[in-house]
């Protein structure tokens, strides 16, 4: 009886250890995604899919967790409080922030703020014109060099 209790206790500890391991892996993924360098881990891929709101049931990671589970796990990471339950997780504001930060990793998805877009457009246009004007100046030099030499412009009395 005592042996069985010890075995049960060890089993529970083992389970708890496995769950801790999951959380640790997710923390690593989060750091990578913030640094914009996580592209190798399958776990991070599934999280990215969640953040871009493309829930795909077939995208299971190596731990066998579903995308909804990953979303929940990422919320744990951002909140800093591990949650052993993986059911009925609602998206939290922090998680949305995380989604935005991971969206920046993909250049196709651009943060749509009208002010930001205007500022960027304005700066881009001005810089492009500035570059074009530089090209104009160098073109003018070439254009002025491309002319007939004075000797080759005949004048009255120049040729008998």
């Amino acid at each position, binding site marked *: 009886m005592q042996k069985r209790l010890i075995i049960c206790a060890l089993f529970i500890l083992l389970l708890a250890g496995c769950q801790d391991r999951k959380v640790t892996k997710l923390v690593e993924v989060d750091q990578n995604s913030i640094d914009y360098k996580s592209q190798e881990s399958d776990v991070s891929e599934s999280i990215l899919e969640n953040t871009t709101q493309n829930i795909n049931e077939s995208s299971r990671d190596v731990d066998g967790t579903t995308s909804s589970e990953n979303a929940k796990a990422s919320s744990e990471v951002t909140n800093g409080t591990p949650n052993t339950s993986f059911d009925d997780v609602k998206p939290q504001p922090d998680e949305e922030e995380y989604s935005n930060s991971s969206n920046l990793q993909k250049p196709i998805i651009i943060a749509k703020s009208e002010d930001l877009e205007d500022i960027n457009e304005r700066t881009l246009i001005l810089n492009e014109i500035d570059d074009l*004007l530089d090209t104009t100046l160098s*073109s003018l030099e070439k254009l002025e060099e491309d*002319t*007939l030499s004075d000797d*080759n412009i005949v004048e009255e009395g120049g*040729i008998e």
Partner: protein
Amino acid sequence: MMKKLILFLLLFIMIISSTSYAQERADREGRQKRTAAFSTATIVTENRTTIKTLADEVRVKTNLSKQRIKVLLERKDELSTEQLKILKNSIVLIKETQEAMKTTMGQINAYNNDILAARQAKDFDTLLILYRQIIKIQNIRINQLTRYNQILDTLLNTL
């Protein structure tokens, strides 16, 4: 005998007069070609001055535009939608004009050797043809630079 002498003299006079007429005609044509070459060369010189003036105007306006852009970038002044629209259009027009200017770049220099050869050979016909080709290129450049100045005027008014 007398008749033969008269005929001989008449023939002699005819030959001499026709030869001198041909010579005079050739000289006249030569002078005309030379004059045409000189007058065409004058047009080339005038066009060269016009291109220089227009290029200087473009340079001044370009530098002024660059200064204004620098100030705008430093101050982060707001630009209206209309201004942005004009600036975008200016980018397209500047690119088009630059591409058009590239098409004739280096073509006038390429004529220098041919003109030198024609000048040394006193070949006014060739000289005239070459000058006319140069004038065509110069006219294209004058149009392009005039257009460029107009684009820069619009740009300066917008900035």
